[in-house]
């Protein structure tokens, strides 16, 4: 009893100290918020990562700030509101005036003032200073002949690879520069794959004949497997054909890369799983083809993590007319369901009408003008709703049994030029 009393008294006095400390800390905290002390922009090294393109007397250089750099240069709040500053420098060595279309870079860009407003603290003078700071660093979109301009555009956050489109508008003239910038920070699954050494040179098969391509694709196994190659999971319903950089077509169409499973990514997934919020880069489970997990996972989340389309790609050892051939599986997550086969007893239910996701991708890439042609071939085998198959987590699916073969294009293809091919009669691509 006496011990307890002493302990109580002890607690009481520590409590007092604690209280004072908390008040002090709070006061400091508020004071800290109010003091807006950005690191000088010149001391950051985003410039070292900058990419440049030149065309007809115009030179454009871009670099996207990492999360850490954003916090340093513009404060913590900008990063929390998912605003991503993009640095641009434009040299106009022509004799024409141009206008930088901020809308072309991001149709929902933020004006310098809007971006500044999220960093406001307490006090007019501070806010005034924040306004001035953002105004000063925001880019001036008017590009006079013979001048050079640089500054920031405040865009919506995209982790991983971001498309930065620089559109310069002139009198009946439009010059466009398209950059794909991989922003450091996201540990995407494809970064752990050494694509050059996936297959020994002797294993590569070069195919030139469309008939032979069709035979290869149709003979490919129906579904993904478990690690040891046993069981049959999701249908392999995609074949993607394209050059090395044609996968940028997915980025253009707004797909997000997938993070490797780590403590951080698991925590973020867990939080969005519970809260039903959006975590666009959430790891997706490993399925196996060629006895290895997917080389690339891509996803497009809608409002919540439970509603997203996701696809997995594996590089095959086949080159068709010099292009890579990727084998893939796509499905649409439509919600959460109970399972005994996952550690957290839940998994994503997929849309059992799995062909729908395949068509979604086709339309999506076509609308982004990333698709040159497509064809349908067999290979999965028809599965009816009455007798569905089940994937490895117990979700049912059925299909007409076809695979979509998609030819990607690195240059834009208008929708009305998109071709549906009969693989056998296909002459060129």
């Amino acid at each position: 009893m006496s011990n307890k009393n002493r302990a109580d008294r002890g607690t009481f006095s520590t409590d007092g100290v604690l209280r004072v400390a908390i008040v002090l800390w709070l006061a400091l905290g508020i004071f800290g918020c109010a003091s807006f002390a950005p690191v000088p922009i010149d001391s950051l090294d985003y410039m070292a990562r900058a990419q440049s393109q030149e065309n007809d007397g115009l030179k454009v250089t871009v670099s996207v700030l990492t999360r850490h750099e954003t916090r340093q240069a513009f404060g913590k709040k900008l990063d929390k509101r998912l605003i991503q500053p993009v640095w641009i420098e434009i040299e106009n060595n022509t004799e024409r005036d141009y206008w930088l279309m901020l809308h072309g870079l991001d149709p929902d860009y933020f004006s310098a003032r809007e971006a500044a407003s999220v960093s406001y603290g307490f006090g007019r003078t501070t806010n005034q200073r924040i306004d001035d700071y953002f105004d000063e660093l925001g880019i001036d979109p008017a590009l006079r002949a013979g001048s050079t301009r640089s500054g920031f555009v405040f865009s919506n956050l995209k982790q991983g690879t971001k498309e930065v489109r620089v559109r310069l508008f002139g009198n009946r003239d439009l010059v466009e520069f398209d950059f794909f910038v991989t922003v450091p920070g996201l540990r995407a699954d494809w970064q752990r794959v050494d694509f050059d050494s996936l297959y020994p040179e002797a294993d590569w098969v070069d195919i030139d004949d469309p008939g032979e391509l069709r035979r290869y694709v149709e003979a490919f196994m129906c579904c993904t497997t478990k690690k040891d190659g046993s069981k049959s999971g999701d249908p392999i319903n995609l074949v993607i054909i394209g050059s090395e950089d044609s996968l940028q077509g997915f980025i253009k169409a707004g797909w997000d890369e997938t993070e490797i499973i780590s403590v951080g990514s698991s925590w973020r997934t867990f939080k969005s799983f519970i809260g039903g919020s959006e975590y666009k880069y959430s790891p997706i489970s490993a399925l196996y083809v060629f006895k290895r997990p997917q080389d690339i996972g891509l996803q497009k989340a809608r409002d919540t993590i439970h509603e997203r389309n996701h696809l997995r790609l594996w590089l095959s050892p086949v080159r068709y007319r010099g292009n890579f051939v990727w084998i893939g599986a796509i499905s649409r997550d439509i919600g959460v369901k109970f399972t005994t086969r996952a550690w957290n007893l839940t998994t994503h239910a997929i849309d059992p009408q799995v062909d729908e996701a395949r068509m979604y991708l086709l339309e999506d890439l076509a609308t982004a003008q990333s698709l040159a042609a497509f064809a349908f071939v067999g290979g999965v085998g028809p599965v009816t709703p009455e007798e569905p198959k089940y994937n490895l987590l117990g979700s049912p699916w059925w299909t007409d049994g076809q695979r979509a073969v998609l030819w990607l294009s690195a240059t834009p293809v208008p929708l009305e030029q998109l071709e549906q091919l009969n693989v056998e009669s296909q002459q060129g691509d």
Partner: protein
Amino acid sequence: MAKHFSQYDRVRSIALPALAMLCLSACASFDPVPLEELDFPQRAQTEQAGDLRVSVSVLSREEARQVFGVDLHKRAIQPVWLEIENRTERNFWFMMTGLDPNYFSAHEAAYINHFRFGGKTNREMDAHFSELGIDQQVRAGETNSGFVFANETVGTKEVRVRMYSSNDLRTFEFFVSVPGVVSEWNQKDLALIARQATIRVETDEALREALRSLPCCTQRENGTGEGDPLNLVLIGGISTLKAFIIAGWDEAVFQQDFRSLFGAAYLYGRTPDIQFQKVRRRVDSVNRVQLWISPIRYRDEVVLVGSVVRSIDPDVDGAAQYVAEDLATAGAVARFGRIDGVGAVSRDAPRKNFANAPYWTLGDRTVLEISSEPVELDEIELFPWRWNRLVGRPGDE
């Protein structure tokens, strides 16, 4: 006393689950109304191009509840009914993403409306949604009808029906007023106002003269005061309304909100004839456009005059530039120009609008001639005036 309570608790512990069970089974009743009993197909809009015919109708919240047996509005899903007749000799594919890039699949729309413990009912629901969803493949000589599960819009909804066939694309564009939502300005007789033209101009120079005589800013009801700068001039009546809808602006339905937020604005003694907004949640901001039908007619086209502002940004030129780029990117701008307007207001001595919000400007008005046919960005012409005060040089005028 305590004992009494615990007994009471025990009774409650039995009664509550029983009640809950009852409620659940009641909630899980799923009784959709047969399609034939509803009359939304009667108000469908129809367009025909060659041997393809498309009809479109958007369901009201109540109709959707009847057809699908659940309240889809709760999940912001808006079913759009389509009927597509293909009398060509080719198979066509209806592109779902053309209507809504983030559409819901039929199974998805059903799944997110599932009842918690309604195994059998939920399977019924899946089958029902799937049955009513449209079949995207429209074969030669066939007619398909069914629903697309789109994201909800209020006011006027753009319904774009893209029909694809190899090396062939046909687009049908509809603007459907969603039943149940009436914007205040829809109740105005815009046609009547539009007939009251007094200044008819034919040449660019005459247009410029006419625009010069406009007041600087919005006014109070009695015609006095200076509110938001009139920094926007749009040439084209219906095509302007369509352009804003295509570019993703919402009709501002609740003018009351605007009044409280921005103060009531008048011109020609009237509140705005047309209003649009784009809400930007991440920065707590609203882009707002208020337009009036002016008495000016340029080559018989209606000339709209108004203001565009971002609610938290005093730089109104940036807001005007945003509208220009947004409409241009939507393919709606045929010509672009800038003329003198409000007069320069420096950031060191900002002016205030009726809501006491500061603004500054270089003083220009942005003039956009709206086209009803899509115009590529590199086809946009400039009015024979300097196209931008910053870029243009002295003497360009």
